[in-house]
């Protein structure tokens, strides 16, 4: 069992800057959790506190049921992979991988077996006698992962391990990490600012902003059930379209979303959820993902400014009055002229419209005040 529990973890620096506010999360054994957010959001700080590289100002950290706040990093049974690889330049690949085991004074035969096994898994056996300077970025990252692997850690910490690689290699290494995870099957904490990595790697994703956790959930949850405007805007590529100054209408017990004068009767689920929440009519920000827009139908109109043919789909940047609207339309679905300068009608299915309170930015359906009060924000659960 290598469960990691962060309980009201807070980091305040000497100058008073608060790195993280009351981070709460319970990471299950063998779970892969991804911490994601923009620069300065506190994701690396959280990871470094788990690693023991940053002191925890307040709160409790448990690894495998043991309080770790004052335990030295080497005694936490963790391993960390850094963005810069952090390989000792004067040592060979073999020596780099064996270093931590030598410090633990393991028998040489055991060290050798562990290093060679990890090298075999990562396909770096042929580089064992080379120094890091003689390796490419991808090979160095594999060595860094191998160095962590040989320790057989309870928790595998990764701090933006793919950020230094080019796009092609990043995609390749991402797939390698997925395969690796299946082989070594331990608990992972992975920090990234890349939402694609977060969505593809994580069992759950923890989204942070300004030191606060905004939402914890599965990739599907954070994509389909964003609890606030930030999460909705951060997750998803291209970014969700937001229509300001829209209205949630309640007429004879039926909810409607009014977007630029066009009324959408909300789905049964939305009706029930809003009713359960006792939601009154109010001003809202309506969010529609670019992939959820259909062109050639509906009453909303937009003039296409840029039309990017991506192969399997068109990325269309259009202007609808004051709003910039991005649409992703599968090439096979195109029956309308989407060339630059043309005007198209567009619409969406009401059940795909995200409704955000105009004042608070919280999702009227998915925001869960109770979990936020516990500092462990998740999307609201409904039993219908």
């Amino acid at each position: 069992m290598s469960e990691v529990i962060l309980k009201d973890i807070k980091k305040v620096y000497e100058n008073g800057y608060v790195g993280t506010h009351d981070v709460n999360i319970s990471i299950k054994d063998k779970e892969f959790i991804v911490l994601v957010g923009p620069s300065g959001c506190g994701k690396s700080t959280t990871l470094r506190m788990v690693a023991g590289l940053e002191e925890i100002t307040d709160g409790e950290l448990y690894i495998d049921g043991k309080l770790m706040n004052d335990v030295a990093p080497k005694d936490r049974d963790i391993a960390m992979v850094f963005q810069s690889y952090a390989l000792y330049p004067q040592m060979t690949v073999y020596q780099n991988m064996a270093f931590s085991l030598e410090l633990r004074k393991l028998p040489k035969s055991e060290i050798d077996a562990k290093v060679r096994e990890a090298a075999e898994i990562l396909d770096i056996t042929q580089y064992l006698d080379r120094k890091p300077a003689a390796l490419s970025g991808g090979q160095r990252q594999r060595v860094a992962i191998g160095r962590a692997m040989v320790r057989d850690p309870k928790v595998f910490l990764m701090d933006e391990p793919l950020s230094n690689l080019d796009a092609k290699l990043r995609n390749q290494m991402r797939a390698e990490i997925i395969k690796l995870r299946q082989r070594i099957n331990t608990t992972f904490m992975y920090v990234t600012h890349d939402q694609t990595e977060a969505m593809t790697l994580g069992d759950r994703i923890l989204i942070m902003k300004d030191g606060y956790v905004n939402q914890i959930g599965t990739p599907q949850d954070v994509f389909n059930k964003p609890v606030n405007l930030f999460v909705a805007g951060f997750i998803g590529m291209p970014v969700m379209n937001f229509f300001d100054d829209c209205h949630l209408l309640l007429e004879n017990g039926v909810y409607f979303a009014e977007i630029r004068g066009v009324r959408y009767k909300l789905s049964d689920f939305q009706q029930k959820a809003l009713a359960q929440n006792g939601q009154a009519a109010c001003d809202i920000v309506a969010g529609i993902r670019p992939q959820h827009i259909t062109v050639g139908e509906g009453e909303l109109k937009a003039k296409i400014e840029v039309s990017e043919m991506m192969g399997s789909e068109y990325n269309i940047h259009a202007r609808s009055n004051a709003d910039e609207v991005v649409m992703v339309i599968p090439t096979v679905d195109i029956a309308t002229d989407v060339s630059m300068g043309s005007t198209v009608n567009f619409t969406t299915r009401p059940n795909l419209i995200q409704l955000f309170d105009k004042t608070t930015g919280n999702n009227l359906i998915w925001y869960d005040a109770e979990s936020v009060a516990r500092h462990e924000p998740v999307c609201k659960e409904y039993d219908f």
Partner: protein
Amino acid sequence: MSKQTSSDAKAAGGGGKVHNTLVYMRQHWQLYLLFIMPALVLTIIFRYLPMGGILIAFEEYNPIRGIFGSEWVGFEHFERFLSSPDFMRYLGNTLKLSIYGLIWGFPAPILLAFLLNRILSTKAKQKIQLILYMPNFISVIVLCGIVRILLSPTGFINMLLGTDWNFMTMPSAFRTIYIASGIWQGAGWASIIYTAALSNASKDLKEAAVIDGANIFQQIRAVEWPAIRDTVLIQFIMSVGNIMSVGFEKAYALQTDLNLATSEIISTYVYKVGLLDGNYGFSTAVGLFNTVINVILLISMNQIVKKMNDGKGMY
């Protein structure tokens, strides 16, 4: 994980960048020449042209007749110096002072840099560095004055020890006084170069070592020492190359009639014979002798270091 991408291959061979830089430099050589010209001219004027003055070592130099008008005596000054009954004593004193100074004085700034690097608070570090650098700005003569006062029979050291020894008259104490005061004055300042080199040590690498379970000494061995090793080697080669160049000022200022047995070194001898007695040819010959020994030591040490350091030396 066996697939190799083209970017892997590209990253592995970083020679293209160097080649491009060389091509660019060749295309714009005038610009580079203009850039190095001031340094080149100054070096020629102040470093190479004065070398003509070594002719004095082979002459009975007379300032009125000048270098080209003075009587040529060949190696007479060298023979005189090498056959002098005190030659071995001066040479021995010089070498002992220099080698002991190297043994004790060379590691001091390195250790200081390691210690400074361990201070986490930037403010505290800056204040400590300021205190350590200050002695460097005291002139040698003032320093020697302070040393003399501190070590006088009624001085602070004797007060601490409860004795009334006159350290300045003890030949056995001279080298300790000379080297210890040198370390006190120069170690802080000399640590700057190592502190700067240590700042290049990767923070991630330090943290990786901490997670790997390395203690302070293992961290120094695995992360910090490799970061400064090349700098240390270059400094060491240069120090060995200066082994015969013990400046006369400090030795002369700390010299007393009673400690001459250890304090009389080649440079103080040259000062006395050359400048006080006006024997310029002889003093230049001794200076040239020193320089030749230094050059031999520099080249030898560089070769030794290259053999021990994967072919990396000063040149």
